[in-house]
Every structure is written in structure tokens, then in C-alpha cells.
């Protein structure tokens, strides 16, 4: 083995220049041999060629799609198709053959090798014709501060035309300079460049220099860090507010259906969480069908799941109202117990049908990743959930205020007898209102499936929070639910850094108890005749 590696190091001396085809392919094939700890040297040997044709193989190695054939230990780029693997030539990417899973084996890597590979690929793609690739390469070097890339960077800076890429490369060069043995004045200049242009990502690089032997470097680094952190303070509070809004929107989604069934109708519905769960499982089923039959439509799976979840949960709510709750109006304790029983039945039914384990609901591509907005990081799934929560709120608000059904609903809540004598079929309105509340819980489940576990216990984790929001906001008032959810979310997030997640939750609960003592009807109390009823 040792001799083999030694031979590899001699090879480039034998074949120099671009004609060294055999050397490169042999170096790549060497990856199939030896143990995990030998791999760093093997990657080093490949990068020494500086041959850009090796990049696809290195990328595949990093991403875990580099395989070798067990029979002759030749290395290939592999693509999974069904249970088989399509093997492609590591240099030309030409298809070679298709083999079964048992005939190939993956070339293993670990985190340390992935870091090495990222750095190596970065310095090898600096000359790539695609500006996007060059930009990514420069950013990688900036983060790793790879000294060995310095030469390649300087060569690339001389020929670079694109202004954005050039700026990124200069920043990367500064970062690499910091770790090199360059002159002090050069390093101080680099510190300033990294500090002023690097933003938050520069902090780790500068922190390392703060304890530097050279005083002027340490001072410069300290000054830059202080400046970055000063600029960051305001952004940090903004970030906390954002986290609060995001948590608040989750609470709002969970509670808004309950605001209808409990808030408007006064039914203590313990099975509310299970309606959310039904919505999440509907999403799972929709995604399964899409995965099986129309994989191209995966990005639209949530949009398709929305109406279905509304119908499934709504129908379930309708059946519940007609079958159980209508016999129990005016008897809150019995309603509580009966709906709690229903929630257990639904949980166990889901457990029997789908199994007790979590189900995977995928994120469509537009809900993955994060956006940078100044010093803020907005994760895509949270952003969409905030938007979605507000849309649902607005839609429900319009239904209640602007439609005939909403008018009837409000009439029945405010004065049942009068509404009935005006010709409104109150039992029918009751059933539809309950179905509406449940349906909204269902579509909340579609959104929550993106951030929570889809398991039979999903609903339980939201039921307490939902009641808290509705009671705090004021029973029977949608605005109260909105303001209540946002207040609790933001308060929780501001408390969390100081008190820890466990204590923050307790403090919020204590606060609500005290608040309800003072204002038993919540933030926005309903006034008028309904109160006395």
C-alpha cells in the first residue's frame, strides 16, 4: 500500500503537463483502496495534478455518489436508478454500465475529508468558465482561509473580468493571507479588508487573530470585531422579533381553528389538535401519491394538499358535531370529556393505519434554505408559514364579515333564539361552523407538517398552546387571537435567551394566569348581549 502511494507521488514527475491522463485516473482509482485514514493523502495526490477534469469525481466523493466496482476496484460516478446504479466514467461522465447494489460499494468519506474536499474543489475551480462556480470557489476559500490556495487566487485575480467575482476573490485572498506568514503591514491591511467587507462570516476568522503574537494585528482584529458586533446589536433584536413573529404565526395557525370552534361556538374541543394531525397526514398521503406517480409535481404537493386537508378535517369535524357534540350543547364538562375521547380514538386510528413511527413529509424546494436580509437570516419555511398564517387569518376574517354564512354564524352566536325566529336553521349553521373550524385546523396541519413531526402525537403538542392563545386573546374575537398569538410568540422569544426554553414557557404560563385574573375575558373582550348569554 505504502509503495503504491509512493508510486503515485512519483507519477506526475514521469508524466508532466496535460497529457498525464493515466496518472489522474490511477490516482482516482486509488480512492477505492486503503482505509478511511489513508484517504486524505489520496485526495492530496489528486489535487496536486491541478487538473480540473478531476473536479466532478471530487465533488461526487464529497456528495457520496462516488462508487467503486467490487470486482476490479475501478472508481465511477454513480447515479441511483431504482435499486441499481448507473456507473459513469469519472473523467468523461460517459455511461459505462448499470450494476446492482451488491456489485458496487460507496467510497467512504467523513466530515474532515469533506472539509478537505471543499477546500480542494474551491482552489481547483477558480479558473472555471462559469462565473457562479468561480464565485462559490472564492467564497469557500474565504471561509476556510486556505493558505495553499493563495497562488491560484493571485493568478485568478489577474485575469478576472467579473467585478463581483473579483471582489470575492480579493476578500478570499485577504482571508488566506491572514493565515500565511506574510508581513505584518500586509496582514493588518487584510484584517481591515476582511472586517469591513466580510460581515458576520469574518468574525470567526478575526477571533482567531485576536490572540495573535503580533500586537498591531491583534489590535486591528479587535477593532474590526467590535465594529461588526456593534452593527450587529440592532440586527440581533430584529432577529429576535422575527423569531417571535414566526413562533407567533405557528401559534396563530394552531389556534385559529379553535378560535372558531371554541371562541365563536363555545365548544371546548379537545380533539382540535387531532384535526391538525389529520391535515398533516393528508399532506403525507398526497406526497406519497405524488412521489409514486407524478414526481415532477412534488413542488406543488402542499398546494394540492391544502383543499384536501380542509375537506378531510372539515368532514371529520362535521361528523363529530352531528354525531356527538350537538347532543351536548350547554354541558361543557361532558363536551370536554367526549371530545377528548374522540381525540384518543383518532390518534389510535392513525397509529393503526400509518404505524406509530414518524412519517416523512418533504419540504418542496421553495421552502428550503434561507434568505439573507441585511443582518437577518430568514429561513424560507418560516417565512412562508408567516405569510400563510396571515392569509388564512385574512380569509377567515372575510368569511365571517363579508359572506352570508358568516353573517348567519355571527347572528346565531349572538342570539340563538332571535336568529332562529328570523328563519336561520341554527343546527345547520352550528354544524357548518364546526366543520369550518376543523377544516382550518386541517390546513394548519399542512403548514405545520413542514416544521414538526408527522406522528400520531402531533396534535397533543399544540392543543395546550392553542387554548392559551384563544383564552389570552379573548374568546370570540379573531383579532384577539392574532394579537394574542403574536404577543405570546414574541414574549417567549425575548425571554428564551435569558431564562432558557423551559423557564420561558413556565413564565409565559404564569403571566397568562395572572392576566386572566385581571381580565377574565382576555385581551379583546366581546361586548354587548352575547356576554350576558
Amino acid at each position, binding site marked *: 500500500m505504502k509503495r503504491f502511494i509512493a508510486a503515485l507521488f512519483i507519477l506526475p514527475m514521469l508524466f508532466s503537463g496535460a497529457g498525464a491522463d493515466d496518472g489522474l485516473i490511477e490516482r482516482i482509482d486509488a480512492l477505492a483502496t486503503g482505509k478511511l485514514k489513508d484517504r486524505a493523502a489520496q485526495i492530496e495526490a489528486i489535487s496536486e495534478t491541478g487538473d480540473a477534469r478531476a473536479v466532478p469525481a471530487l465533488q461526487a466523493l464529497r456528495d*457520496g455518489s462516488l462508487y467503486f466496482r467490487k470486482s476490479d476496484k475501478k472508481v465511477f460516478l454513480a447515479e441511483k436508478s431504482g435499486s441499481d446504479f448507473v456507473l459513469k466514467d469519472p473523467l468523461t461522465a460517459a455511461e459505462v454500465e448499470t450494476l446492482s447494489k451488491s456489485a458496487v460499494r460507496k467510497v467512504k468519506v467523513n466530515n474532515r475529508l*469533506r472539509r478537505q474536499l471543499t477546500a480542494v474543489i474551491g482552489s481547483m475551480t477558480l479558473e472555471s468558465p462559469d462565473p457562479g462556480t468561480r464565485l462559490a470557489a472564492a467564497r469557500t476559500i474565504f471561509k476556510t482561509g486556505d493558505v495553499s490556495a493563495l497562488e491560484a487566487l493571485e493568478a485568478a485575480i489577474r485575469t478576472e473580468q467579473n467585478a463581483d467575482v473579483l471582489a470575492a476573490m480579493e476578500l478570499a485572498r485577504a482571508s488566506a493571507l491572514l493565515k500565511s506568514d506574510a508581513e505584518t503591514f500586509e496582514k493588518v491591511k487584510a484584517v481591515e479588508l476582511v472586517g469591513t467587507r466580510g460581515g458576520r462570516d469574518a468574525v470567526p476568522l478575526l477571533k*482567531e487573530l485576536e490572540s495573535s503574537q503580533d500586537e498591531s494585528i491583534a489590535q486591528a482584529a479587535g477593532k474590526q470585531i467590535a465594529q461588526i458586533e456593534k452593527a450587529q446589536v440592532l440586527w440581533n433584536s430584529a432577529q429576535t422579533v422575527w423569531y417571535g413573529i414566526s413562533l407567533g404565526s405557528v401559534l396563530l395557525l394552531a389556534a385559529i381553528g379553535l378560535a372558531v370552534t371554541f371562541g365563536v361556538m363555545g365548544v371546548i374541543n379537545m380533539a382540535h389538535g387531532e384535526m391538525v394531525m389529520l391535515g398533516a397526514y393528508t399532506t403525507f398521503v398526497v406526497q406519497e401519491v405524488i412521489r409514486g406517480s407524478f414526481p415532477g409535481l412534488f413542488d406543488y404537493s402542499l398546494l394540492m394538499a391544502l383543499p384536501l386537508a380542509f375537506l378531510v378535517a372539515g368532514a371529520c369535524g362535521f361528523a363529530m358535531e352531528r354525531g356527538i357534540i350537538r347532543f351536548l350543547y350547554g354541558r361543557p364538562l361532558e363536551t370536554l370529556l367526549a371530545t377528548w375521547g374522540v381525540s384518543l380514538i383518532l390518534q389510535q386510528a392513525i397509529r393503526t393505519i400509518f404505524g406509530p*413511527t414518524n412519517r*416523512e413529509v418533504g419540504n418542496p424546494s421553495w421552502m428550503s434554505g*434561507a434568505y439573507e436580509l441585511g443582518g437577518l437570516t430568514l429561513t424560507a419555511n*418560516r417565512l412562508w408559514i408567516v405569510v400563510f398564517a396571515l392569509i388564512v387569518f385574512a380569509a377567515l376574517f372575510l368569511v365571517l364579515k363579508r359572506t352570508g354564512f358568516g353573517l348567519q354564524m355571527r347572528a346565531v352566536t349572538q342570539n340563538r333564539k332571535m336568529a332562529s325566529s328570523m328563519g336561520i336553521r341554527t343546527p345547520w349553521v352550528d354544524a357548518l361552523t364546526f366543520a369550518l373550524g376543523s377544516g382550518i385546523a386541517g390546513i394548519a396541519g399542512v403548514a405545520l407538517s413542514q416544521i414538526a*413531526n408527522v406522528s*400520531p*402525537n402531533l396534535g397533543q403538542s399544540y392543543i395546550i398552546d392553542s387554548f392559551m392563545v384563544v383564552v389570552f386573546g379573548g374568546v370570540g374575537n379573531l383579532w384577539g387571537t392574532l394579537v394574542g398569538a403574536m404577543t405570546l410568540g414574541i414574549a417567549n422569544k425575548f425571554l428564551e435567551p435569558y431564562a432558557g426554553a423551559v423557564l420561558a414557557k413556565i413564565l409565559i404560563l404564569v403571566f397568562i394566569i395572572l392576566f386572566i385574573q385581571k381580565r377574565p375575558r382576555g385581551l379583546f373582550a366581546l361586548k354587548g348581549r352575547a356576554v350576558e348569554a
Partner: protein
Amino acid sequence: MSTLKNRIRSFGMATIVAATTASSAAWAEDTIKVGILHSLSGTMAISETTLKDVMLMLIEEQNEKGGLLGKQLEAVVVDPASDWPLFAEKARELLEVHEVAAVFGNWTSVSRKSVLPVFDELNGILFYPVQYEGEESQRNVFYTGAAPNQQAIPAVDYLLENEEVERWVLAGTDYVYPRTTNKILEAYLKSKGVSDEDIMINYTPFGHSDWQTIVADIKAFGSEGKKTAVVSTINGDANVPFYKELGNQGISATDIPVVAFSVGEEELAGLDTAPLVGHLAAWNYFQSVDTPENEAFIEAWKAFIGDEDRVTNDPMEAHYIGFNMWVKAVEKAGTTDVDTVIDEIIGVAVPNLSGGYSAMMPNHHITKPVLIGEIQEDGQFDIVDQTDGLVAGDAWSDYLPDSAKLISDWRKPLECGNFNVETQTCGGKGS
């Protein structure tokens, strides 16, 4: 006359009743009952149902091989419904009503603590298959899961050596296992020269789902220019949103690796693992272990459960080892008598699924290899490191000053679970 008739009738009834009781008793003589005490409903059903199934499979396999001591094994399944006090009641039911020869069960530490007095009082045998916080050794309990020195410590060693980690986040769910494990790890890290300011400890409630602030904190903690890693004792359901948030905030395993002690194949099954590639887990078994024993086990499991997509995990292997150990001890003793089996099982060695033999130690813990795996895109683990030999489970941690001087040895004449080597006294039976 009528009274006589009645008497005859009642006599006849009595005989029939007596006969049925006798025959059912005689029938019961032909089987050995094995109790299975795992939650099939409630929060823990997600993890424990699988263990019930694997026990049924092992019992079925044993019966096909001709049973035990010439008798068939009979599984008695009860459902403690993730309710800790109910665990004690159900354990009592298994031992008193069903008179089972051994019980396999429990997942959470709190449920184990709740059944301990029952097993002590009624003198039963419990095999406990889950990694736990240690600091316990009971005469009636056999711990086939990992003690902290068989999971947490080797994982931290791996990060120290291979990833050269200097700053540590110890994140856990707020209950006894993470708190004790983190206490041990904190002491261990400090013994390795890690300073206070380089350790961040964070606890979250059960089922915590909003990880934005904490992940942002971890990110900030990790951007101080020193290599940072997260040691996660986050339990169960809270893991999925935690990993999702890590992925969304763009923290990859190459930046800040997370090593988890409660995340196995089963937990990953509910997750899109692509953003998690490279995060680590430490266990004594992975489904990806490449041995003929494991291959046979996976095949048998998939056939038994009738689902090609079901995965195997570490607590399942622990039951596999524990059950085989019990079978071997019973065969050796020639009886299922509890006291005899408790004496005979010490020293019994059975094959584990990673190609070696696990043995029962005098402290009622077993020897196991420790494996470090990296999460792959297919939801499986790539084994990146493995201890050279087997690691013996240590009931009392060497890194906690109060526990360091305690040893456990259930062989005669010591027969003590917490013998203090300094004072030369046994601190009481068990606990």
C-alpha cells in the same frame, strides 16, 4: 328431591370447573411465559412498539428451534401506555398474575425507575434494552443498552481526536438521562483541559419544536474561531424539528457536527436526511454493520414485519443479545427459577450482531463495541470509527467524584450494587 337434584347439578358443575382449572394449569406447565412491557400507545409508542415486535419475533424463532427446556415460550404482551405509574402496575400484573419467567421492557429511565421496586419486591428479572445514564445497578435488572462509557465518552473522544473540537455545546431534553449524561461529559471534558467558557449547556422541554433561537445561539457560539461540535441528548420527537432548523439555517456537518445519542435509523425514517449528511451518532449497533449475523437478522425482521422499508436499530440488537443471554442462562441452569438464573447469567457470552461476542458482567451490564456513524442520504449510517475491542459497561461513572469510588458486583460473596471501595461498605441493596 329438588334439593338433591340441585346438589347433584352443583356437584357436576364443580367437577367441570375443577377439571377445566386443572387442565389449564397442566397446559400452562408446558409453556414458559415471557413478559413484554413496552408502551403500545401514547408518546413512547413511536419507539417501543418496534421492540415489542422484535421480542415476538425472537420468541417465535426460539419456538421454531424447539423452545426452551423442551417447552414452548409464550409471550405475554401488556401495554403500559407511556404512563409511568402504569408501568409499575403492569409489571406487577406480569409477575403476579402471569408469573412470567423474565420481562423484557421499558424505554425511558423514569419508567424503569418506576418498576424497580416491583421487581425487587416480587423477585423478577428485567432486561432493559436502551442506552441510559448509568448510576444504577440492581440485582433484578440486566442492562443490555449502553452505559455512558459505552456511548457518550467514546463519541466525545472521536470528536476530540478526529475533528479536533475545542468548543462544546451539550444540548439535551430536560430530564434525568441528559442531565446525568451531561454532568458526566462536563466532568470528562474538564479533565481533558476544556475550559468553562468553551462549554455551553442547554436544556429544552420534551417535544420542543421551535428551535430558531437555540440554533442561532449554537451558530453564534460556533463562530468564535474554534472548532465547535454539538453533543445532543435531545430525545425523541424534538429531534426532527431540531435537525430541520439546522439544515435551514445552513449549518452543515462540516461546520458544526452534531453527535447524537438518541437518534437512530428509526428516528431518521421520518426525516429528509439530505441536509444532515455527516452529522454523527454513537451506538453499539447500526443497521449498516456488515456481518452475516446482521444480514440474517435484518432479513428475518423484514420478513417478520412484512415491510421491506422497516429498519433495525440499537435497542433491537440489545433485546436480541439480552434474549439470547437469558435463553443460554436458563439452559445452563436447567430451570427458569429467578435466583438460579440471576447467578448463572453472569459470564454468559452470546454473539452480537457486529461480529463479536457480548458477555454479561458481574455488574449486570454487558460488553459491547462502540461504533461512530455518519448519517447518509438514505437514512442509514456510515460507520467511520469503531473501538478496537469491546467496552465493558460501567455502572458507576469514573468521572463523577461520588460515583468514582463505587463498584458493583452481584457475584457471591459481595452481592452488592454499590460497594464503596473507600469505606468498604455496601451502600444498600441496589440503586
